């Protein structure tokens, strides 16, 4: 007797449907809508009707020419670099210490909990806390520096460009190095232990093992961290906005703040903001493509490579036989 066969494939579609619907309604449609608005004259509080511009790229040209948008991109890059390089170095150093089996560091669990802690605190709260900490003329940091004799009179950090950028970079560094470290450590734990045993047998020192065995194996994870951190950096909004409203003199204005200010203050230029969003989207898309390439399925690529190599060998054989 033949059993009635059930076709289960439809459940694959059915169970993915909520995800797809939510994505279409709340992501794709708004993205398309934003793209469209970027080519129109839509501006003014509470307006929803628009006409297409005769020069479709007028908003894009205007945004790219706007000094504050250029500043925003430069600031984003500066703040990100000042935060990422020390973050990466410290995370690597701590990873080396935490994964050194010969001299086991105790209390690792507690240290991880402490290092990661700032990451879960609301960014808005952290920004305001640092705003208060760097208060002028009275603030905890100024009081500390004066009592240590480093400065004679209070220093107004938040009216100076580089100190303000430095504070934002520090906050980013402080909230993320713990996460980066934990990710790196789990990456090291995923490395084949035989590699370390081999290094051990060959008499490699701790630093040598780290430099020549661990680091090369962490390359993918480091690249992944780099790209995700860059994409995260491009979205920076809460901290620069609440620390100093992008000031002084727009020195901490970021791309996301530019979009927000264009659309939700002043003359409510939804069209310009949309064009800026699309430029940001293009930058993020390029970075995501790089990330996607890094994370691509390794096995599939190896198989494809092997197949290619086999084809090559086969062709060479044929040529030799001729």
């Amino acid at each position, binding site marked *: 007797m033949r059993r009635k066969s*059930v076709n*289960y494939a439809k*459940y*694959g*579609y059915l*169970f*993915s449907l*909520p*995800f797809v619907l*939510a994505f279409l309604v*709340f*992501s794709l449609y708004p993205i*398309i*809508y*934003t793209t469209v*608005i970027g080519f129109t004259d*839509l501006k003014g509080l509470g307006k929803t009707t628009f006409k297409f511009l005769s020069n479709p790229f007028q908003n894009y040209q205007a945004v790219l020419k706007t000094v504050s948008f250029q500043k925003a991109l430069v600031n984003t890059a500066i703040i990100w670099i000042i935060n990422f390089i020390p973050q990466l170095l410290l995370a690597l150093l*701590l990873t080396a210490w935490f994964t050194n089996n010969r*001299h086991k*560091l105790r209390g690792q669990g*507690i*240290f991880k*909990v*402490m290092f*990661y*802690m700032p990451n*879960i*605190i*609301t960014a*808005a*709260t952290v920004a*305001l*806390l*640092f705003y208060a900490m760097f*208060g002028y003329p*009275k603030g*905890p940091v*100024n*009081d*500390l520096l004066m*009592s240590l004799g480093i400065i004679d009179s209070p220093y107004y950090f938040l009216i100076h460009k580089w100190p303000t950028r430095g504070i934002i970079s520090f906050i980013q560094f402080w909230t993320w190095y*713990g996460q980066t470290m934990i990710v790196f450590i*789990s*990456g090291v734990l*995923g490395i084949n232990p035989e590699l370390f045993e081999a290094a051990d047998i060959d008499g490699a020192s701790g630093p040598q093992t780290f430099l020549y065995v661990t680091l090369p194996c962490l390359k993918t994870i480091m690249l992944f961290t780099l790209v*995700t951190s860059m*994409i995260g950096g491009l*979205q920076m*909004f809460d901290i620069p906005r*609440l620390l100093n409203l992008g000031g002084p003199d727009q020195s901490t204005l970021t*791309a*996301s703040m530019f*979009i*927000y200010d264009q*659309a*939700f203050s002043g003359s409510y230029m939804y069209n310009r*903001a*949309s064009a800026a*969003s699309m430029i*940001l989207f293009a930058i993020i898309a390029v970075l995501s493509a790089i990330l996607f390439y890094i994370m691509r399925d390794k096995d599939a690529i190896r198989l494809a490579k092997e197949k290619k190599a086999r084809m090559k060998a086969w062709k060479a054989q044929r040529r030799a036989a001729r």
Partner: protein
Amino acid sequence: MMSLKYLVCIILSILSILPFWIMVMNATRSTPEIQQSALSLLPSKYLLNNLNILLNKSFNPLTGFFNSLIIATGATVLTVYFSSLTAYALTVYDWKLRQPFFTFIMAILMIPAQVSIIGFYQFMYRVHWTNSFWPLILPSIAAPGVVFFMRQYLLATLQLDIINSARIDGARELYTFNRIIIPIMKPAIATQAIFAFVGSWNQFFMPLVLLTDSKKYTMPIMVSLLRGDIYKTEFGSIYLGLTLTVLPLFIVYFTLSKYIIAGVALGSIKE
């Protein structure tokens, strides 16, 4: 060498705690005390005084707390349930578009809210959903990162025999998922639920754009009010307001820290 390592780790730990310690201490101190010296490692006795000043103005921690609680809870439940369901569809069933759909999820992993915010705002404005919690909750149904994580988990732990025997017993597919798969996925769900909750709770950009009615303000929006002129010289109250917003997160973090750290480690890609 070892003691240097411990020293660095201890200094970094202090660096994590110190700003919050100063914040809590200053929350108990009066404005004149703070103006005298803003740096104190010991508490004073003006906590209630600061609380009175704080609550007499626009800062309303209870409203913010409950609004954030509603949004974060709703978003978390939707994220973990539907991400698990989508991951289940991706691992258990053999359907034609399975691989393309997974590729698609990977491709949209990194799209931030900022790039669609204008369209999103206009859309919500037209359907009269500004000042509603729905646009802050419903998009959580599509969380590509969580789907990715759940799929990894299912690939590593799920045995198809369980599903087959459930089918022989005559269980319907959704029933199998709800009653058999969800319990299996509990550890992964717990981890992702913590991150989804904290992520939603801390969200600032979207609520700032959408919510204009002060009765609907979330906790981070309440926090941003502390920067305004109304609290200009009430330093103690500002610190207390900040403390009130950090307190629930501290409680969550230090009770669940073990799972959170494990979750961060798992979230990384493995070669």
